[in-house]
């Protein structure tokens, strides 16, 4: 099946330096691809190229099979785009803005009214539909931008930081909305909120200094944390020294380290579940003086920091197989 979004070696140079270098990826229907990276890594620049706002220095992108360079209008008709910061004409009302976008997109007749209503409902901006956008709160402005992107029910959605500036409840609503639409569309979102990636995305692309440094599922990324699956035990101080050699011998244990009042047992990669079972079994059998035991999950911020600060050259990526659509 043809991917709905396809970036091919997208490169953008500003004054000789590459802001984005050889970025290639594809998004299929049913996928939510999370674009993750520090500020200035090239997320927005890449999105601007895919939506036809910026011409790439090299490479190209395709939306629903239409080349953004040679079939710009056809590609733009099939995508909805929320630019960074959700810019909107401040003197217009949300209704006015949606009417304008509907006019440009050539929505007419009964469909036009239906689509405007649907977009207002989906983005929950009905309460402020006749207020000038300038007077709206940040959260409402963001949602007006979202309504504009959804207006023509596009196959492809490109959302640059869709939940930035929203309160936790609004974030939840926007995520729910994106999740509801996910099955029918190909969605590309950029964010630097790590929890969002876990909550929303079927695949993650980590970008740093203009290049892709990882392309995998969020769960896969978590596994890159050296402490992913580590078993942490809180042990009575007097018994700690005697326990350490025993933990070394537990099948599946890689290293054992003391940290404050806790003992951390790192697993041999791939044997995380195994390790926990073995530790608890030994604990019960020998009646260790342990007050607390838990298994740690990988932390995305650790992985994120490692990927975006250490990698000078792109590391080999583990491509997740595209989900069946």
């Amino acid at each position: 099946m043809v991917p709905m979004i396809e970036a091919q070696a997208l490169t953008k140079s500003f004054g000789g330096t590459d802001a984005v270098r050889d970025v290639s990826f594809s998004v299929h229907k049913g996928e939510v691809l999370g674009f993750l990276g520090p500020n200035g890594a090239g997320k927005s620049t890449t999105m601007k190229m895919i939506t036809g706002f910026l011409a790439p220095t090299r490479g190209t992108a395709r939306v629903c099979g239409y080349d953004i360079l040679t079939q710009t209008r056809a590609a733009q008709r099939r995508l909805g785009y929320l630019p960074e910061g959700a810019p909107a004409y401040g003197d217009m009302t949300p209704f006015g803005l949606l009417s304008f976008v509907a006019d440009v997109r050539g929505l007419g007749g009964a469909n036009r009214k239906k689509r405007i209503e649907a977009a207002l409902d989906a983005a929950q901006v009905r309460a402020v539909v006749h207020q000038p956008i300038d007077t709206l709160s940040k959260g409402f402005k963001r949602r007006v931008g979202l309504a504009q992107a959804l207006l023509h029910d596009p196959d492809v959605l490109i959302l640059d930081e869709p939940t930035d500036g929203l309160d936790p409840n609004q974030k939840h609503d926007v995520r729910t909305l994106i999740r509801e639409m996910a099955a029918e569309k190909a969605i590309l979102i950029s964010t630097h909120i790590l929890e969002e990636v876990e909550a929303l995305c079927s695949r993650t692309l980590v970008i740093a200094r203009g290049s892709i440094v990882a392309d995998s599922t969020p769960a896969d990324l978590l596994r890159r944390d050296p402490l992913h699956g580590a078993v942490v035990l809180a042990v009575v101080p007097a018994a700690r020294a005697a326990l350490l050699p025993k933990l070394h011998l537990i099948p599946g244990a890689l290293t054992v380290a003391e940290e404050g009042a806790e003992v951390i047992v790192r697993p041999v990669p791939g044997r995380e579940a195994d390790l926990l079972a073995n530790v608890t079994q030994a604990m019960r059998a020998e009646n260790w003086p342990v007050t607390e035991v838990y298994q740690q999950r990988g932390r995305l911020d650790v992985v994120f920091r490692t990927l975006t600060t250490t990698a000078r050259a792109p590391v080999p990526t583990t491509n997740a197989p595209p989900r069946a659509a």
Partner: protein
Amino acid sequence: MAPAFAVFKREIASYFATPLAYVFLVIFLVLATSLTFYMGSFFERGQADLQAFFNFLPWLYLFLVPALSMRLWADERKSGTIELLLTLPLAVGHAVVGKFLASWAFCAVGLLLAFPLVIAVSVLGTPDYGVIIASALGALLLSGAFLAIGSAMSALTRNQVIAFVLTATVCFLITASGTSLVTGAFANWAPTAVVEFVSGFSALTHFANLQRGIIDARDVLYFGSLIIGFLLITALIVDLKKAE
């Protein structure tokens, strides 16, 4: 052209959504009529025509039109809406034309609202309506040329004040090149052909031709090519500089 019309509609609505439209129209009418009656000696001339009105129009447009055109693109760039606009399925040309036509239509409304002057002269005497119509056409073309220049200057910057100053300067140059101040400076030493060329470049000269009541293709062509030329330049600048 449907997308261009959508842009046109949006722009017109945005003029009237803020006090801009009302302030502009009121100032334009107050200045235009007071210049006509006080400085133009409308009554003292004792002639049933609108020369007094049209003579001052280029100088009035010189600072009012840049005020109208300065926001055309600078504002889009500053607020980031240019990204929203240009990722919609429309050609840059459509956006340029839509915006320009909206500002031009707005100028035309201002001109139209001065029609009580026509009533005044027809009450006072029997004016030559042909001359008035040709002069009005000249004024319309002049404002169009200024707006096209203003649109290009506005596309150059995200700062509206800079856009205003640039537009006023360029418009002043093409207006003043026909005044005796400039032609006089050339007349003493340059061959007549050069003086003719400089003066032929002037918006004032062509406007004066139309004010005599003769609609000459050359004058219309002059303004037409200014408008089209500067709109093409606008589209080029918008396309090249949109990301900055």
